[in-house]
């Protein structure tokens, strides 16, 4: 078992990664560590963006939305004006019980309006192992939003994940991928768990009731941002229809 820290990982990141790997860490500690790592990863990506005023879409999964993805999103919102957020609820299907044919369809989504063509797509995931969810979510967004740059962010990645992900996309798309991870692990248990990884199944570590439990919730960040957008819609429609 070996872990390599990437050049992006500072001392504080290493401490936070240790919190994730510690199976005894409390849910609140774990959530806070994910949020902080999101902030650091978000900053690392922002440093690489050369567009003066990019159109950005940050995409996260339901389980990451209030923690890792929120950290990333807040950094982008602070630095740029044109940033949208999307949250996907992915299911997991193993047809005929064969996990090698697993797929992770998007069953529900929250997606803020962004232009049809964006400059930067930022895809956030707590860990990239088999790359299945990341692939599904990229497949969905890439064709609709035609991003110029695609940043894939995760605190931890398995050593084979990048290669696996690139293989499934045509060169023109795969060439746009830029991976931002803090640690690369090379060991996977027979259960599929990467070790030390993020200390086991992320749904449970984040305090959700397993896979089904996480799909039954609506993240706070979604509720908050949705309410803000609706308030803005209503305010603008009032001003349009108001007295001349």
């Amino acid at each position, binding site marked *: 078992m070996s872990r390599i820290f990437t050049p992006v990982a500072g001392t504080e990141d290493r401490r936070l990664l240790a919190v994730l790997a510690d199976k005894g860490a409390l849910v609140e500690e774990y959530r806070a560590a994910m949020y902080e790592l999101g902030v650091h990863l978000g900053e690392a990506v922002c440093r690489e963006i050369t567009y003066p005023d990019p159109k950005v879409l940050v995409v996260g999964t339901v389980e990451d939305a209030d923690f890792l993805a929120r950290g990333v999103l807040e950094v982008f919102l602070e630095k740029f004006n044109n940033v949208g957020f999307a949250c996907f609820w992915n299911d997991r299907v193993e*047809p*005929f019980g064969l996990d090698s044919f697993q797929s992770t*369809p998007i069953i*529900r989504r929250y997606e*803020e309006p962004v232009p049809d063509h964006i400059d930067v797509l930022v895809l956030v995931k707590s860990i990239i192992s088999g790359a299945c969810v990341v692939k599904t979510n990229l497949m969905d967004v890439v064709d*609709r939003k035609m991003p110029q740059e695609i940043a894939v962010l995760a605190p931890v990645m398995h050593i084979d994940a990048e290669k696996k992900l690139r293989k499934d996309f045509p060169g023109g798309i795969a060439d746009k991928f830029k991976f931002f991870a803090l640690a690369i692990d090379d060991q996977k248990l027979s259960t599929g768990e990467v070790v030390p990884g993020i200390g086991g199944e992320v749904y449970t570590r984040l305090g959700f009731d397993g896979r089904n439990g996480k799909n039954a919730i609506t993240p706070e960040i979604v509720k908050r941002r949705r309410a803000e957008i609706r308030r803005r819609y209503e305010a603008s429609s009032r001003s349009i229809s108001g007295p001349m």
Partner: protein
Amino acid sequence: MFDDETIRLACGPVGLEYLGNKHRGGVSGQKGTRYEDYYAVYRFAEFAGESYTEAGGLNGNESLEFLSQVKCFVDDLVIRGGRLSGEQFYQLRNVQDLSWGSGGKSLAWNFENQKTLSMQAGYDCNCCVVVPDEELRATLAEGMPSKLAKFSEVQYFPWLETLDRYIRSWPEFYEAIASLSAYEQPTYEKCLPVARGLLAAWVDAGANPVRMENVLRELQSTSSYVRPIEGERQLSDEFVEALAQVENFVWWQERGYFHWRSADGLDSGTLTYNCHTPRFELFIAWVTNNGPTSLDDLTDGGWLA
């Protein structure tokens, strides 16, 4: 499918010995990632998509079967049953160079013997060789021996290495998979579980027949978003009226699935189970009994995921 006595009667001891050796050789490579496998998925989807009817059912193709590893001369894929008048035998050759040849064990010899064997067994038969190169396809079609012409054809099927690439890069493959989807125009992301489900069925079956109705029923019981054989469902006025009370909520039934979105388009989704399942009955009962008035009522109850 063909017993040894039928083979011997049709093709003599030479043919019987040849098939014995060939069959013992088994399947080379790992089933699930081969050219043959992707072609089988494509043809299954194509046949299934054409079989769905608005009234429900598969228009007589419920019993259509796909087989591999059959003891016969043209053996990579056999399609039989359903509304097919005969049996279809496919030889998949993922090569850039191929000829019909002549004499024992050549492609032409195998096709000829397959016809003889099928006739001996009392079946009509068509044979097809499939190659990944358009020029090679044209050359083989042009050079087909005249004695094969009445029952043989040559097809093109590209070699794209992964299911994802077939879906994304070959429109015919996308169309075939899309015809089974819960969406009229599915995204690539929604095609993937359908295609993977079919490939899993093919691999899981091993040497056993893959029966169309069984596979579709199995897949429509998962969240693969495979459209139900039963077609669309007539929904009660009570249920429709109850949903009309949900503010800013738009829903519709498409290919037997319940699709929804918020009026402002921020939220959307598709139930993972189709409208003919017991779980959908529970959804109907919950909606009619509880009278939700907002999207939050539905999502907080866990009904939209």
